[in-house]
């Protein structure tokens, strides 16, 4: 009898624990409801004591892909609640976790945020699932929104980034080189020779801080530098070479040849210690210390005026005569999930394009505003130069973001082999053509 009692007790304990587990899974599966409820209650309280605008808009979840501005995004959410009474929940994905990969998991788990970050070529993956934002107020204030052929205006630009050859203006002035003259291969060659001859006088290690190391910096050569082949010298909406590329991986060999010669010049005048096995940190540190005159990065590499003691600017990759553009535009966008809270997302975007949000994004987060009416000047040391190109209309698009996913991992190796001297300019072109065609054929 005692044994039976024990077994009943044990069974009871097991059942109880099972039920306990069951109830926890239960709350997680229905968390959509409970969460919404709790969050609306928190919404009402501040709305009641700040303004009379009763918030009819439900809370909005935003997935931020830039971990470095997480704090500022939280401040933005607080400001949004303070001003409008609406709730914005910011979740940040950072470090090595890739936002698009995480989003897939969220989608499978039926846990999609209302606003999330995508790169331009990922729009196709989400075909039919992103809300059309055309006609919203903010679209009149910027030319940088992402427009998709089938879904309409889908992307809200939250920042503008630029890439070209960043230069140290003080060193150029000392050597007597005018950066405005660097719009042809011959001018570049002459400038490189002058700078190289005055190495000791200027106290520099090399003319270029260019790193073609593929393992950790493949994104730099394979996406950004390669992007110059696609876009340099073209107007922002000119898609000639990206269309050619996406048509089964074709390249313009004549243009690629000139590009290859320009890269060859960069290889020749680059710091050998950096070129083949350097790191991003060494590259940027070398530029900040004035060891290199040019750097092959964008405005993200020097974000604060305190980092540098000299003036920064951008010069174009002038591998053909007359190329005078830098690549500028939003590298990624915020989009609204059409099955999510679209009204809430639209309301947030309109607020975000306004003054108080731009204040936080520009002055605190150090981003460059894509909006025409933004009154804040970015603190970024490259901003002045960047802005002069944008206002003059001399900027090209980030069409490199539209190439097939993962192509940069193949092309960056060709840059590395070229840097090592395994390939010459002609071989660079033919190898590039073969690698790209193979990748598109897969």
């Amino acid at each position, binding site marked *: 009898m005692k044994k039976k009692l024990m077994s009943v007790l044990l069974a009871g304990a097991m059942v109880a624990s099972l039920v306990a587990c069951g109830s926890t899974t*239960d709350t997680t599966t229905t968390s959509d409801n409970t969460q919404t409820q709790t969050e609306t209650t928190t919404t009402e309280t501040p709305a009641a004591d700040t303004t009379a605008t009763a918030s009819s808009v439900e809370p909005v979840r935003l997935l931020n892909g830039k971990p470095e501005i997480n704090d500022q995004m939280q401040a933005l959410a607080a400001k949004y609640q303070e001003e409008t009474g609406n709730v914005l929940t910011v979740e940040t994905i950072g470090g090595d976790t890739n936002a698009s990969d995480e989003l897939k998991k969220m989608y499978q788990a039926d846990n999609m945020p209302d606003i999330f970050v995508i790169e331009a070529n990922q729009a196709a*993956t989400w075909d039919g699932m992103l809300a059309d934002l055309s006609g919203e107020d903010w679209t009149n204030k910027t030319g940088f929104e992402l427009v998709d052929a089938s879904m309409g205006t889908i992307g809200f630009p939250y920042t503008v980034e630029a890439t070209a050859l960043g230069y140290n203006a003080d060193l150029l002035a000392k050597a007597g080189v005018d950066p405005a003259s660097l719009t042809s291969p011959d001018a570049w060659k002459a400038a490189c020779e002058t700078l190289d001859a005055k190495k000791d006088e200027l106290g520099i290690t090399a003319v270029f801080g260019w790193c073609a190391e593929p393992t950790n910096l493949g994104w730099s050569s394979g996406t950004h530098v390669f992007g110059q082949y696609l876009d340099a010298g073209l107007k922002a909406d000119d898609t000639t070479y990206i269309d050619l590329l996406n048509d089964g991986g074709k390249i313009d060999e004549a243009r690629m040849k000139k590009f290859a010669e320009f890269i060859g010049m960069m290889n020749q005048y680059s710091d050998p210690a950096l070129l083949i096995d350097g790191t991003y940190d060494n590259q940027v540190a070398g530029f900040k210390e004035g060891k290199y005159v040019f750097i092959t990065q964008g405005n993200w590499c020097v974000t604060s005026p305190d980092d540098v003691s000299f003036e920064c600017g951008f010069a174009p990759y002038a591998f053909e005569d007359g190329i005078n553009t830098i690549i500028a535009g939003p590298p990624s966008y915020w989009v609204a999930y059409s099955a999510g809270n679209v009204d809430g997302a639209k309301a947030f975007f309109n607020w975000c394009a306004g003054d108080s949000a731009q204040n936080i994004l520009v002055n605190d987060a150090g981003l460059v505003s894509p909006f025409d009416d933004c009154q804040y000047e970015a603190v970024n040391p490259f901003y002045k130069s960047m802005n002069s190109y944008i206002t003059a209309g001399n900027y090209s698009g980030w069409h490199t973001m539209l190439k097939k996913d*993962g192509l940069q991992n193949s092309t960056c190796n060709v840059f590395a082999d070229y840097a*090592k001297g395994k390939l010459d300019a002609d071989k660079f072109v033919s190898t590039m053509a073969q690698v790209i065609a193979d990748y598109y054929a897969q």
Partner: protein
Amino acid sequence: MSTFSIGRKAVSFISLIAGIVLAIAGLGLSIAKTGNASRGAMLIGGVVLFFIGLYLFPTLKHHRSIINFIFLFPLLFAFMVTVIIPLVLGIGYSFTDWDGIRMKSVVGIANYTRMFKQPAFLWSILLTFLFVVFNMILVNLVAFLLALLCTSKIKGLGFFRAAYFLPNLIGGIVLGYIWQFIFSNVVTKFTGTYSMLSDTNTAFIAIIIVYIWQYAGYIMLIYITGLNTIPGDVLEASAIDGANKTQTLFNIKLPMIAPTITICTFLTLTSAFKQFDVNLALTNGKGSVEFLGSYIANGTEMLALNIYTTAVINNDYALGQAKAVLFFVILAVVSIVQVRISNKREVEL
């Protein structure tokens, strides 16, 4: 005649039926996403009721099997949910055009034919086999020599054992980044050339070196255990008979630890096949090589990393899944052979 009371029979059948109904209703509500908060409780309650009914089921003949099933159920359930169902789904996905988000159509064996047309993937397979062969030999050799060292009568034995084992406790990613620094900043100071990691051939050697450094200590421990089980009287007898050190090693020690060698060989074999983290952190698969007449950009990319890159970086989940199925088949064959051989040996012993 009946050994069971009416009451027990009634309780059993009612619980069984009510349990099944509740569980199905709960499941149905979950699938229909009606948002009914009690659906989870319904499902769990139903399952519990079903098991109570099963436990009380009026049978003497099958009672023992029912109890066995009830006790095994939690484990079987977990195994189903975490291994069997994902495996079946995974194989299913490999026949579709799944992109990680949606599945638009079933493409049959297109992914399988496509993957064998990729020189880069064939190269990955070849490289993985090369890596496995090199590692199986080198790791075992180094580990055995270390084990001999650590069973000899040198001073500071404990320190040596711990020091050789320590790298195994560091995660592969961390290790990869440490060695990346060593190869590109320390080794280059001596050689004066660029980093070993920038050339495919030397990068492959670098991965092998790091892998041996990480894994030899672990295998060494197994060899030490093996060497310590050799009976002292055998060694003593051989010493009295005048065997020198080489003779003792080749004629006494090696034959005596043959089962250990088998175990270690298979351990290195399977773990080398699954090499991922060091590969990812050290070279991320980069490096160029001429293979089958074309320039390939993933010169140091092994199978596991190739699958990861295909799915996550190149955004081709279905193709990655097809490659993973092949990977599973290869590993399954290796494991079955391993089990066969070790079973045979145990019988012989």
